[in-house]
């Protein structure tokens, strides 16, 4: 119980802040509660399949297979798979982090996992369609084309700037998460 309280203390503090805001500025507080509620509903509707896929990936895909597909020596194949996985997703970016964690744990190359994160944030197919409908095709296509090399560059530079020890740490973090 105490542990539970400890884990959720930050969340509870935020709820209290929201209540204070509500007491001082009822209209802002109300809007905030409405937005939180509608986002929570949206999150809950989109998250079950993401975590089910995560569980299945963990159980069925062997570490050796993942290393072959997205590991150190996976080359262009790993990059393509990372792009595909990220782009085919739906859901907010923060839902991508647990999946990134499991990809790392299974031995994917860090830069490929960062490409996956980049693709999830920027080139998600359902979002691109929506973008085209509200911003026009030209804007969407231009942004998409420029973003592909940008995503790869961010991933590679981040990977290069981390020392061996720092990378080791990232993988250890991911490993501990499996418990």
């Amino acid at each position: 119980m105490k542990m539970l309280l400890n884990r959720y203390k930050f969340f509870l503090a935020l709820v209290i802040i929201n209540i204070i805001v509500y007491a001082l500025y009822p209209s802002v507080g109300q809007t905030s509660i409405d937005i939180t509620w509608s986002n929570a509903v949206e999150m809950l509707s989109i998250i079950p399949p993401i975590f089910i896929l995560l569980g299945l990936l963990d159980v069925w895909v062997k570490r050796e297979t993942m290393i072959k597909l997205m590991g150190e020596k996976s080359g262009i194949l790993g990059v393509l798979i990372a792009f595909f996985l990220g782009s085919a997703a739906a859901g907010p970016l923060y839902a991508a982090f647990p999946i990134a964690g499991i990809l790392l744990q299974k031995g994917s190359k860090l830069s490929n996992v960062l490409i996956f994160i980049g693709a999830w944030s920027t080139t998600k197919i359902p979002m691109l369609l929506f973008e085209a409908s509200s911003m026009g095709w030209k804007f969407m296509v231009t942004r998409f084309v420029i973003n592909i090399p940008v995503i790869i560059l961010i991933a590679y530079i981040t990977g290069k700037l981390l020392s061996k020890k720092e990378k080791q740490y990232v993988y250890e973090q991911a490993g501990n998460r499996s418990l």
Partner: protein
Amino acid sequence: MFTVLMYVVAFGLLILSFLKDKKKTIMALKKAWKSFENILPQFLSILVIIGIMLAVLSPEVISGLIGEKSGWLGMLMASIVGSITLIPGFVAFPLASALLKGGAGFMQIAVFISTLMMVGIVTIPLELKYFGRKATILRNSLAFVFSFIVAIAIGVVLG
């Protein structure tokens, strides 16, 4: 629509998995639940932060911040607003489109959208848990810098 597709794929694979190996499937579901429960406190916190933030930074306020300002100051402002807010696409794009019609420049809007998507100040605590401090800071700072490059390129192509 796309969410429905995700459900179809996830549950299709789940059934397939169950037919092949019951024990493994139950393990997968346990893992799914554990991973979810593990980050639930962060998820809930993020939801409340987004709620409070968007209540204060309403579309009108955002329009005021980046709507009329142009040039580098406008871009800087747009990038800061984009980095700290976390607006879902179905709200952000109509807002961006309205801002464009209201006279905002392509570059300002592009940098707003890019930072909105790639830089997540609010979600940094969660990202830290998975990638560690250095990788998280690097990824976000690089994304911030590259958002400007993307925006300039869009400005050149569309402007």
